[in-house]
């Protein structure tokens, strides 16, 4: 902390008295798009293919759920992740499956499919059926998979932020080398839980990476109408946490940044990453999205992470167009099968209402 002595005029017309300044230099990392090749990242062609397939699966799954919502197969809210798939796929590729943990908010289908939850259990959950990943109790906003270490799916904005630090705390406590990634929206930054938790994470040196998925809007509120400081990666300064800014439309940039930050976490240094992205659809199904122009939307669609990866693959002759087309067919078939699966899965019977509330089997519920 450099202290500089200088003389300056007081702002309010008081006598010209001397005061000093304290100068600090901050450095953040920046991961722009189109900077990393798959070989920079040490990814094989098979890896690239898997990434592409995974992003495509998320896209098609959600397009299909939108359709099913229209047919009233799905109730409640449905928040689509379309446009943001490079974040889920890119970041999950930085994790050790079966060891590391993820947790996110209610826009959770993408992350769920990225960590390997099946289309079937996800679609069945949307349909509210017993074979759903949450037994039909959670719905779109509450996908969970203990097996895949996907800790939800959370509907209260900001409420999962402390959970993530707790998950990381347990990793550290058990010394199992695991790390937790917590995804939050740009809108969630302004919940108190963000502030409290990032300080705790830094104080306790927890193995956690906080990822802000900045898709420019929280419902109808553009980032600059909610944030006094719109460079969200700077929030880490308050907690002595390293911060990075990442282009979220390039899956390789995401992957590289998350590898670096996950490595930091594994060494016991929590950090904050702002990934800039965009959601193509409305906030939820009922949102006409009047707060943005068509032009803005179209322009962003040009940066589409899936098309971008496709171009990259083709330009670099990694996979043939024909092979990609086959992938597309395969993914569509998987999604269609999940709709059939969901439709055939039974609705939970009334008695199920009392299941899953307590671990205690004979809890004496009030019945009148």
């Amino acid at each position, binding site marked *: 902390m450099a202290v500089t002595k200088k003389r300056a005029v007081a702002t309010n017309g008081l006598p010209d008295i001397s005061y000093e300044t304290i100068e600090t230099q901050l450095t953040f990392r920046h991961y722009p798009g189109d900077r990393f090749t798959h070989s920079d990242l040490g990814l094989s062609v098979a890896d690239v293919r898997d990434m592409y397939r995974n992003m495509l699966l998320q896209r098609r799954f959600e397009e299909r759920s939108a359709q099913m919502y229209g047919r009233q197969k799905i*109730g*409640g*809210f449905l928040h689509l992740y379309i446009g943001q798939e490079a974040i889920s796929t890119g970041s999950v590729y930085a994790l050790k499956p079966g060891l590391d943990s993820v947790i996110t908010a209610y826009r959770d289908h993408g992350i769920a499919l990225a960590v390997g939850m099946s289309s079937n259990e996800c679609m069945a959950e949307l349909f*509210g*059926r017993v074979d759903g990943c*949450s037994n*039909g*109790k*959670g*719905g779109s*906003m*509450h996908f969970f998979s203990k097996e895949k270490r996907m800790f939800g799916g*959370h*509907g*209260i*904005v*900001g*409420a999962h932020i402390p959970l993530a630090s707790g998950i990381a705390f347990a990793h550290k406590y058990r010394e199992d080398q695991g790390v937790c990634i917590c995804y939050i929206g740009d*809108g*969630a930054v*302004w*919940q*108190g*839980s963000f502030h409290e938790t990032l300080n705790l994470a830094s104080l306790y040196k927890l193995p956690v990476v906080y990822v802000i998925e900045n898709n420019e809007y*929280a*419902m*109808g*509120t553009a980032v600059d*109408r*909610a*944030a006094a400081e719109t460079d969200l990666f700077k929030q880490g300064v308050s907690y002595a946490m390293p911060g990075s800014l990442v282009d979220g439309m390039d899956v390789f940039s995401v992957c590289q940044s998350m590898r670096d930050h996950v490595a930091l976490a594994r060494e016991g240094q929590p950090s904050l990453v702002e990934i800039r992205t965009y959601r193509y659809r409305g906030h939820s199904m009922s949102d006409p999205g*009047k*707060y943005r122009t068509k032009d803005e939307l179209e322009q962003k669609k040009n940066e589409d992470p899936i098309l971008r990866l496709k171009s990259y693959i083709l330009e670099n002759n990694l996979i043939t167009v024909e092979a990609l087309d086959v992938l597309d067919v395969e993914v569509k078939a998987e999604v269609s099968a999940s709709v059939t699966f969901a439709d055939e899965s039974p*609705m*939970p*019977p*009334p008695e*199920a*209402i*009392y299941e899953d*509330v307590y671990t205690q089997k004979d809890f004496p*519920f*009030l*019945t*009148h």
Partner: protein
Amino acid sequence: MAELQLREAIRAAMVEEMDRDEDIFLMGEEVAEYNGAYKVSEGMRERYGERRVIDTPISENGFAGLGLGAAMNGLRPIIEFMTWNFAFVAIDQIINNAAKIRYMSGGQFSFPIVFRGPNGAAGQLAATHNTSVEALYSCFPGLKVISISNPDDAKGLLKSAIRDDDPVVFLESEFMYGMRGEVSEAEDYTIPIGKARIAREGDAVTIIGHNKSYWRALEAADMLAKDGYAAEVIDPRTIRPFDWDTVIHSVKKTNRCVIVDESNPFASVASEVAFQIQARAFDDLDAPVHRVTAKDTPAPYAKSLIEYYMPSAEDVYHACRQVMYLN
């Protein structure tokens, strides 16, 4: 009488009051540019400008408290919660500051503020988005709590709430925002806080229900009417203070009572109403007070389960028959 949607009636109340009093402003998430998540405040930003209709970040604790500070310093805020589920992060401001500072300051600082938004179940939204909060707030002295069931009450009571110099928790309903109903066109129409409404007179049984539950009470009364029994239906409208006189008077006539309350049962408004009835009309009761509530579980997502979770008109009907010893 004009026919208005519930959301329009609420808006009309805010607009009439804001036209009348410059000190009133509306603040909340998406209330301005977006015209309200449920379009309750549609057009208000255009009418009053961004000085008086104000969007917030997702910082419920912050803006609830900001509203309270503004009230301490002479303004009359209306704070909208997108739903009351999202007010749990702000509850400290409401129950520790709104409810208690007047007292702790020896009456120096008042809180002419309204916190409003939809309460209770709204369908397949799962457990965190379906909580009923009336009992939680009503137990705190210092607050007033209103829960409305129709456009006319909404308008008359919201105008009273805005004018009231005490903090008011005002509970609406997503499911009812589109519901239409006749609204008085009387100039400056207000309904006094703390007065129940006898929606239907009868002598066979008293059914009490607020907010959506009021409609279940009415439906059950219709079913009983087909059986030849006249149920008295009371909408308490205000939960704190509660209009005990109206309820006790009714129970002394009907000698039995069923309370409908879509909250979880334990320590609910229904519990309190039952306590008061047995305390104040013990000798008049021919049967124990019954209640019909949501199940004693979190709210599930699945359609089959959430329907079972909620109190139904049939449940109310059967409870009435039970206290009438007809089962």
